[in-house]
């Protein structure tokens, strides 16, 4: 069994510090909410659909309250009040606003107790539905068990959801355990969730509720045929993290890309916005039994991977503690990692193995999401295929759980049908060929792998200490992660952050918290 010799004191210390860093962020944020969170509450209340010119009703509602200076109380209060006052459903109220038929900020107050009860009640259906979908998933996993790890995870990105569904099913039949429909370029910066089935995207397909549903149905059908539950993935990151978390929960997605800092570093989204949104979105993920995938692979693609180890680990520690605070169980925290060291350097395979094993050992109950080489792939598809093969090997040797299958054409285009076929075939071969190899080898004590792992871990502790001293906001301002510097007051979506008023009320948050602390309702362990 491959195991590194790791100093557990250093690990404990990293956890303590990360816990401290993230607690401070959460504290600072406790007084803030965002338009995305409020739109999510509206969705929980059943506000769905678009205006004739395509504006989603949750945006209509929240924009209306913002315009009227009432958003600080939270959307739930005013929406519930309006429902009571007008005798309408939340969606009817929203349509009236869209049509200019009402200004809900001026309606008569229906009494705090009444309004609060109404607010709670109007979100209850969604919560029930999400619990039902979670139960459905658990039942399906019993009935259609996934018996092998790593799970082979592939991407569809045709831009056309109908085509994605076809190709997703093909991939599942070829052996994929997980299908991700990646999003069109730019969706993360849209401050609304597109609506309906979509057939045009660039380098990906829009994440919409209708698209999620169509994919889920396609994969459910295929899962039954294959006798193996095929998981569906999308992204809840960008400016609509919590809304997409909601949609995904309702449409029974199984995993969601969701990182506490990705938006800040890689999309220049405002810090406060991101930290607030990630927390609420993760609470929904947690409640829905969804596995999150964090984005540490992005450090490895952006800066030299040989040197990025400590920032990857530091980020994982923080992502982990943010996730725990949002109620995610270890089994739901798919920490990101990737195989991105330049293949031109000597001993690259040894370094990859050391790092993959280190991540695995530090978070033993987390299903690490291990990402393939990308940056160092060039147009030579044959060599790229071989690079992936070593990635596949390391993944199997180190017992990873979620394995994003690399594509030989990574440097050229989003995967073609045959690219997926070839890559899955290769990954499945390695899973079979090397399945017990890791159990029959041992790490030489004090050798290259041990020393490499120890030095990365030490540097991680240093980095976390530095961040802790400065505070996370300041650390990011100074470019500690991925060399990217962001201002607390800068970035996109900042105008969507607001201070909660003393009357602020969010019934969903309350219910989620209650549900998550209630052991009987907490999502069960991952089946594999």
């Amino acid at each position, binding site marked *: 069994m491959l195991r590194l010799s790791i100093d557990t004191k250093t690990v404990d210390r990293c956890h303590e510090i990360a816990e401290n860093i993230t607690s401070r962020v959460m504290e600072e944020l406790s007084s803030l909410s965002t*338009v995305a969170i409020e739109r999510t509450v509206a969705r929980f209340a059943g506000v769905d659909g*678009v205006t004739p*010119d*395509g*504006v*989603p009703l949750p*945006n209509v509602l*929240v*924009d209306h309250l*913002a*315009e009227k200076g009432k*958003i600080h109380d939270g959307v739930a209060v005013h929406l519930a009040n309006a429902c009571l006052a007008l005798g309408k459903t939340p969606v009817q109220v929203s349509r009236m606003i869209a049509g200019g038929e009402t200004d809900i900020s001026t309606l008569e107050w229906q009494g705090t107790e009444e309004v609060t009860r109404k607010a709670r009640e109007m979100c209850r259906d969604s919560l029930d539905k999400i619990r039902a979908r979670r139960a459905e998933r658990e039942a399906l996993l019993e009935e259609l068990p996934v018996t092998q790890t790593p799970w082979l995870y592939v991407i569809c990105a*045709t831009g*056309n*959801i*109908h*085509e994605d*569904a*076809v*190709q997703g099913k093909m991939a599942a039949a070829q052996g994929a355990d997980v299908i991700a429909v990646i999003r069109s370029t730019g969706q993360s*910066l*849209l*401050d*609304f969730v*597109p*609506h*309906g*089935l*979509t*057939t*045009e995207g660039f380098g990906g397909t*829009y994440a*919409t509720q209708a698209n999620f549903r169509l994919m889920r149905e396609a994969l459910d059908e295929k899962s039954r045929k294959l006798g193996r539950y095929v998981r569906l993935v999308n992204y809840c990151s960008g*400016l609509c993290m919590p809304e997409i978390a909601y949609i995904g929960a309702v449409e029974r997605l199984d995993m969601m890309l969701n990182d506490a800092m990705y938006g800040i570093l890689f999309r220049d989204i405002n810090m406060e916005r991101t930290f607030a949104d990630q927390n609420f979105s993760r609470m929904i993920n947690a409640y829905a039994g969804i596995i999150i995938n964090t984005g540490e692979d992005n450090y490895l693609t952006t800066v030299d991977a040989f040197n990025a180890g400590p920032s990857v680990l530091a980020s994982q520690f923080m992502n982990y503690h943010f996730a725990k605070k949002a109620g995610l169980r270890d089994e739901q925290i798919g920490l990101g990692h990737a195989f991105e060291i330049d293949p031109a350097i000597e001993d690259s395979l040894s370094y990859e193995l050391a790092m993959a094993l280190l991540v695995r050992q530090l978070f033993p109950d987390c299903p690490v999401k291990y990402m393939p080489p990308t940056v160092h792939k*060039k*147009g*030579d*598809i*044959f060599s790229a295929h071989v690079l992936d093969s070593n990635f596949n090997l390391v993944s199997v040797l180190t017992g990873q759980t979620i394995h994003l299958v690399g594509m030989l*054409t990574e*440097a*050229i*285009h*989003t995967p*073609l*049908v*045959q690219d997926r076929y070839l890559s899955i075939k290769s990954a499945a071969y390695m899973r079979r060929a090397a399945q017990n190899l890791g159990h029959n080898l041992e790490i030489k004590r004090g050798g290259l792998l041990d020393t490499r792992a120890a030095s990365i871990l030490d540097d991680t502790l240093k980095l976390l200490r530095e961040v802790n001293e400065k505070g996370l906001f300041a650390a990011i301002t100074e470019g500690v992660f991925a060399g990217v510097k962001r201002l607390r007051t800068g970035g*996109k*979506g900042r*105008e*969507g952050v607001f201070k909660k008023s003393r009357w602020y009320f969010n019934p969903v948050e309350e219910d989620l918290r209650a549900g998550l602390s209630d052991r009987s309702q907490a999502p069960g362990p991952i089946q594999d």
Partner: protein
Amino acid sequence: METGIGHRNCQVTSGGRASSAPHSDLVLPYGDELNDGLMQVSFTLPVAAGALAEEAARQAMKLMGLEDPQVAEAAAIGNNATFFIGYGRLTRPVELSKLRVAKPMWQELDQGTINRLLQETLARPLVVVGAATGQDAHTLGLDAILNYKGFAGNRGLEAYSAFKVVNMGSQVPNESLVAKARELTADAILVSQVVTERNVHLANLTNLVELLEAEGLRDKVVLVVGGPRITHALAVELGYDAGFGPGTRPQDVASYLAQEIARRHVELGHLHE
């Protein structure tokens, strides 16, 4: 307050065309969406790496009728040669209904049925002589068909009561094969040809037919050839009765032989009527 970059109505369609649409008669390669024509190529040009070589590569792809040719990789591999990997779009479709697919005429039968059919037809075992001929020493393919053990769990002809198999092995001169077939009054000759470099198999296979014809044996045997580069169409073109390619199972060959022998018997019967 504005919601960020403004609303954008993503194109919504009620039922976009998807690839599962029934396939038409005109087909093109399918990469990212049905009939997008995507084609991957790789090749080497004897031109030193550089802008000229890349343009030459794109030109070569255009000569193949590939639109939007992209050079994904251009690697100097020595001797002023450059290796290319490219993608382009084929725009001329294949017309399925126009294709002529050459197939030997047989249905898959099980071992019992084959034995029975041959027993009824011949009332004696069918004599099969097999060889890897000429300088070809690759016997695994032939053995897979003939030997008891067979191939991928499918038993070889030796496992059938209805066949008497003589496997002459490797590097058998055509002359020896013909002599053996005469000696045993073989019903079928099974030839394996694996080495095809510089088309050495074509000459060798043609020579065998000529020898058999010269000896007046050609019509007396079912003449079969197999190998990784053999297609039925090629076999027929060379004067063989059937050809079997990669992945052939013994049962395929047994089924074919039984039905072909039965067919000939009936025809012969008619002839004698």
